[in-house]
């Protein structure tokens, strides 16, 4: 384990002020401590700022037309909250599918949307694979290697790792906002990967917030998201990350759809025609392919070759179709 100094903050603002010199936030600890023990990156902090003692930051409440969730709300509580279950079921379902009961009991929603990538190369102990995400000029070993949990729509900044968060996908589809110590983000913007900073600690983030910015609250419109669901396709039914996932919200006969496990960030599509669920699944995949082909072609790999991870394309189509059918 990397040695570190532990500091405690009594407010999010105080925590943000303590994030100088590369310090990082420690909330539930389910990802951060794992990283410190595994020493998988050279960009680990010398200081951790614990925020778990910040008072009244784990609420789940309905207020002013929003479901408001404190950053320290536990995933288990979100999964079981009746308001979330009835008014934003996709988030409840996503929270319920994170890891295992023990980890959901410790893990927070803030931590879940601030975790690091789950690439098998990136996470390997002792930085055995100096990959592009954590080393300037590093390679993406997944391109030639193992990429079941990687993008099927090309990479960003040479990295094929995907956003591993279940709740992130749901939040994007639900049109959520994320309130930090600096600003309020639209979820779809929040999860833009800071690819220009790959090779630094910030570049390892799965979101775009600054290094001294702390998530305080999640806000979800409390009406219009009732017909929503989250479907996850993983090898294991517990303690696994999505190889493909889809959050679908049906509003006014159209669907807002976010795809997970298939790109660096949740892929979001608004107003998808759902008159033919099969066609809807195929259309979002076609659009995603089209968009990725507009990007850096050198980042694409084997993406439609069913001998690698192209099977995820078919599964994505299917889970989108089934999600729509389940809501109709």
């Amino acid at each position, binding site marked *: 384990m990397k040695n570190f100094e532990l500091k405690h903050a009594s407010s999010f603002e105080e925590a943000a002020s303590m994030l100088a010199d590369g310090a990082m936030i420690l909330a539930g600890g389910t990802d951060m401590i794992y990283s410190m023990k595994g020493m998988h990156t050279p960009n680990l902090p010398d200081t951790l700022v614990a925020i778990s003692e910040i008072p009244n930051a784990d609420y789940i409440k309905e207020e002013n037309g929003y479901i408001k969730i404190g950053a320290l709300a536990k995933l288990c509580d979100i999964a079981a909250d009746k308001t979330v279950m009835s008014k934003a079921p996709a988030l409840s379902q996503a929270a319920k599918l994170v890891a295992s009961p023990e980890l959901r009991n410790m893990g927070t929603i803030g931590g879940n949307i601030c975790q690091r990538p789950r690439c098998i190369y990136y996470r390997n102990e002792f930085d055995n694979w100096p990959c592009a995400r954590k080393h300037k000029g590093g390679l993406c*070993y997944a391109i030639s*290697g193992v990429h079941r949990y990687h993008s099927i729509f090309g990479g960003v900044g040479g990295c094929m790792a995907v956003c591993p968060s279940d709740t992130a996908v749901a939040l994007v589809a639900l049109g959520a906002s994320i309130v930090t110590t600096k600003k309020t983000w639209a979820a779809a913007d929040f999860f833009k990967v800071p690819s220009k900073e790959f090779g630094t600690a910030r570049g390892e983030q799965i979101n775009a917030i600054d290094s001294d910015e702390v998530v305080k609250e999640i806000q979800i419109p409390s009406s219009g998201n009732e017909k929503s669901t989250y479907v996850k*396709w993983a090898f*294991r039914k517990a*303690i696994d990350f999505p190889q493909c996932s889809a959050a679908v919200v049906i509003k006014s006969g159209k669907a807002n759809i976010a795809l997970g496990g298939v790109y660096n960030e949740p892929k979001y599509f608004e107003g998808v025609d759902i008159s033919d669920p099969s066609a809807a699944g195929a259309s979002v995949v076609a659009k995603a392919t089209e968009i990725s082909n507009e990007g850096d072609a050198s980042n694409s790999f084997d993406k439609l070759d069913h001998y690698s991870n192209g099977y995820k394309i078919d*599964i994505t189509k299917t889970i989108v*179709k089934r999600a729509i059918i389940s809501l109709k």
Partner: protein
Amino acid sequence: MLVLDENTKFEDFKVLGNPDVHDQSGKEIVLGKTDFAADHFTGHKYFGALKSSTIMKGTIKSIDTSEAMKIPGVKAVITYEDLPLLWSPTITRYGQEVAGVVADNFYTAVRATQAVKIEYEEATDGVFDPDVAMIGKDADGNPVSSGIVPGNIMPVITLYRNPDMIEGVGADPGFELSDYVKEYKFPWSNSYTHNCLEAHQTLAWWIGDDMYFYTGTQDINYIKSYIVLAKYMPGYPSNKIHGVTHFNCGGYGGKSLDCLVPQALAMSKKVGGYPVLCKNTRQQNNMNRGRTFACTSTIKLGVKKVGNDFKFEACDAKFYSDGGHNTATPCGDVHWGLRTTYTIPYATMKTHLVFTNSTTRHYWRCVNDPPGAMNYDTAIEKLAYDLRDDMGYKGTPYDLRVSNMRTQEMGDQDFGNSGVSNYYAYGLHYSKYWGAFAIKDLYEKAYEASGYKTKWHDAHTKTVDDLYHNGDTRWHGIAITGHHDSHGVINGGSQRGGIIRAHDDGTFTVLTGSARGCSGGTTVCCNVVAEVLGVSADKVKLGDWGNTDTTLPGGVQAGSSHTVSISTTFYNTAVLLRWKIFNAAMAHPTFYGQATSVDDFDVEDGVIFLKKNPEVRAPYATILAKNAAIAASSNGWEIEETYTGMGPMLGKFTGYYAETENNTDQFGRIRGGAWRSKGNYLKRGDYVTCNGAAAAACEVAVDPETGEVEILHYWNVVDAGTVMFRKGAEKEIAAGAECAHNMAFFFGDIYDEKYGKLLSTQYTEAMMPTYMDMKTEDHDLILYESRDVGGPFGCHGIAEPCVTNYVSVFLAIYNAIGVWINPEKGNIGPDRVLKSIKRATKDGYSIDKIGARVK
């Protein structure tokens, strides 16, 4: 009073097989009191960590330890010079141990290993891909070499058989006699994890010239007598080597070099004998310990039409196993699964070891386990479908299997009763005699329980209720497989001893040399003693175990071997103790003058009485009040019959028993195991095969759109011989069934093939299954007691035989969708189901067409 002979009524046992008897050590396990190496010397020890190579082939040019030694808290660094018999400057695989650091705490030690600078001369001709290794050239035509054996391939075992017992004739005459011949080639399977749950750790220290170690292993005496002496200090006096193990790291651990004992001892020696706790990181544990072999095969089968049946006439099978850099036999026991389960008059079986520079692979017995079984079982299943297509066969795959099964009367095709024995592997010398031969019974039970007769259908012709109620279709499939298996075999390494102490309150303590097995191996020892002494199970307690200073090297080790010898050992020891107590009783006032020999006594519920006058009686406590006794015995196996280099542990036992024609000695003890039925007793030195066996039926639903496979029901039928500890046996076979499920879908190492490195170094990545992935309520576990004739009680290894039947899942998937899944060096996960469907679709197959299938 228990006396084993042909009249023994096993149904009358009061302790053995009693479902109310609990695990002697289960309470400690569930309360977390099980002691690991790290639990000892808390606060008064150093910590050791190991450094692994970052190349897969080459040599170490230099090692610079100066920076590591400057780190505060670092006490010493060891290199291959400190372990010349175990470590080498020659690198043959990624992750090979190249140095170790001793420090104040483990994390400092780990960090210091990063500061040990090693300069390598990396070879450019290393090889990771076994296909490339077999060819000897890479895609550009450049020669490649593992550097271990010339050509990277070593034939390991060749078996021949024909009706005239002429070795070397092989299969060709059989093919000439066959009406139908088909050859099946199988791609490389994956290499499975056979690893412990806890990363290995050993605490070692020296006091003067005595070495001490505490580790996790199945067999502490093996570590002492083989690992320490062969790999660390050859010729060292055995009475100066002291080892303890109380827990075997989850059942898989510690059969060979994975105990870290030499490493920890070398580290301790380097710091003046101070205790050092040497640990693997999880990554190292996964890189260096317990991988099993990948396999590829070509299997040619010939059958002859006899009436409406087709009989196996010939088999020519070639198995190739990727053993990494390891030299253990990988394929030897395909024999068990194929040749001892089915009758095949003319056969040639050849196995080969392919050497690559991939991570350490270990030998998991019973058919090179899953890969080998996957191949030959699939070959037989394919043959059945092909016979239906091409030869008008009306039977099912089950019918083909059962109609070709061997029976006990047929003896062994390759050795033993048949008079030909050319199966020698690393000193293993299997028996002349068969024990139980219940495989056909197991098949029939699986057949009946599963409803196979009405459920089996031609491939891709039956659907199940739609899971999602969305109009999508799932396809139904069913299959049955089963095999004989090497587990439970008596072998020469079983010279084992037991110790029982009788207390003056009429209770008894058992001291056994084995580690605590997963499901109560130590409890089995106690149960045998209770049965023989005629007391209830609660009167016999487990004392020390797995301690080379205080126990004899006897006991059950997981589910692998010694299954029979353990019952011999403690039966013998208990009989000896009973004989001593009865002798004492003769002198006791209660019985004085009324008994002329120990044969005049009997015992029931802990009370000794005269057979001729049962009212003259006294509890054990009365007799033992002034005559507390200890009994220690060995089971009399021939010491010269050792395996894998294991030598005598307590001196030479040869000649310990009087040479008589009888199978018992003067104490009535069983000598060397016995046939206990048909009045047929083994002579001393004879060997009996009492292999385990299991069959399984699997019923699945396959979702062709996501590749997901649901096991609708799984019937796991296991021949336990005689159940010695029912709760433990039930747990073992349940675990075996779950393991089969895991093998099918989850287990599997993940390698980066370009760089030759193992990626699945942590359990999140290695896809250890979760309980959420198994509906155990849909697993039927059927214990079949075949009443084997081997050993005093006739018990079998029971857990691992179940594992191999994971192939039934694979075959059921074919029955569902009509497509053979290409494992692509992996498991048969949903991704591979989808890929295989897609490949087939390119060749004209359609999932939407009922009955469509791929040959």
